[in-house]
């Protein structure tokens, strides 16, 4: 049987009757030359509504990180179009993309990517400083964010003095520094133990409740299960979409206690 018979859905946000915040059409990203051509992302259509939490799952190498980079303007598609908040990304220059990332996108990475020589609060204020914020306003915002991620007592610690979970919370706070329209997280819990994963999940949940749009690339089912919507990727394409409804409330059914 051929690929066309695969289960595929048009991922449109129409049912929500809200214009999507992020929109991708016919996205394709190719690497290498003619013979060794690799299609990291292969003809992906995607809409993400404001306030939605979308999880993208799939085995490693399926192209999910590349897709995230395309959505955040870290990379440009070979073909296809990307919009973020009504602005078209794929035709932008490097400089325009940088400006857009600065104002509208917050990145969270698996490897945290904090600056080793900067303290927690200095790391968080960096995007605001890059955006031309006054040092005082940037510092105030960074302190607020530290409080939001419950790290106020670690403001002057260097990353090397923080645990993995704490580093990731600092990185999330940094992603929020310029109040981005969308936060893009690439395997945010990939380097974390289960306790720290739970901390990060709680933080994402609070952000979600506050209306933050989130796109999370992960291979951790726990994160995927808490998203509003889950898409699975394989070989650069979407193969499945699940809209996860609210829970049944009957938790006892999860365990084998027949009371």
């Amino acid at each position, binding site marked *: 049987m051929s690929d066309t018979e695969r289960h595929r859905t048009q991922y449109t946000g129409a049912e929500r009757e809200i214009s999507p915040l992020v929109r991708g059409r016919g996205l394709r990203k190719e690497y290498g030359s003619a013979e060794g051509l690799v299609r990291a992302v292969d003809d992906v259509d995607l809409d993400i509504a404001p306030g939605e939490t979308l999880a993208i799952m799939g085995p490693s190498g399926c192209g999910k990180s590349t897709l995230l980079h395309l959505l955040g303007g870290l990379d440009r598609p070979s073909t296809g179009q990307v919009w973020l908040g009504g602005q078209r990304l794929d035709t932008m220059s490097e400089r325009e993309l940088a400006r857009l990332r600065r104002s509208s996108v917050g990145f969270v990475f698996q490897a945290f990517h904090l600056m080793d020589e900067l303290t927690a609060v200095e790391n968080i204020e960096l995007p605001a400083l890059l955006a031309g914020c006054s040092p005082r306003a940037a510092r105030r915002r960074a302190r607020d964010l530290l409080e939001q991620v419950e790290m106020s007592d670690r403001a002057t610690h260097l990353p090397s003095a923080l645990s993995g979970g704490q580093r990731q919370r600092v990185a999330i706070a940094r992603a929020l520094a310029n109040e981005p329209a969308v936060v893009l997280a690439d395997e945010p819990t990939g380097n974390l133990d*289960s306790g720290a994963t739970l901390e990060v999940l709680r933080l994402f949940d609070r952000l979600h409740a506050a209306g933050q749009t989130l796109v999370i690339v992960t291979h951790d*089912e*726990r994160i995927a*299960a808490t998203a509003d919507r889950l898409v699975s990727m394989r070989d650069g394409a979407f193969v499945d979409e699940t809209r*996860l409804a609210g829970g049944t409330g009957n*938790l*006892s059914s999860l365990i084998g206690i027949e*009371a």
Partner: protein
Amino acid sequence: MQQEVVLAMLAKEPSHGYELRARLGAALGPLGEALNGGQIYVTLARLEKAGLVRTARVEDGGAEAERPERKVYALTSAGEERVTEWLAEVSWPKPDLAEFHLKLVTAAAAHLADPISIVDAQRRELLRRLRDAQRAAMTEVAQSDGALLLEGVVLRLQADLRWLEACEATWTDRRSTR
């Protein structure tokens, strides 16, 4: 409810049925919320009949007229023995995967259904359960008894989901090679 759990809970000290229920609820956390309280009394009655539990004393309901009487249960020596045996047991719930596996095999063989859609449906169900468990876990205090149990549930569901992924990959391969 497993009889041994009730017996083991009595090992601490002679207790009322409702005390046992509260302790059970604390240990299970959110997963114990929907527990049917009446079941405890039925189990206790059974255990008493079997000679593993005895009534230590009966307290009067007193001013709280709703409670008819308050039986305080204690372990008999046979009951204590049973608890000791239970603690030493290494039995473990066996993963019941064969049924689902056979469901896929038979469905495919008889062309009754697409094994992949069966997997998909199953996956959705497990994801829903995982979502419930994960949401509950996020509200729990870290390190609490309830959180620990929820973590176990979450990890089992994750393992099951990964197996479903493997099922999907294999059945997709089989379909395309045939």
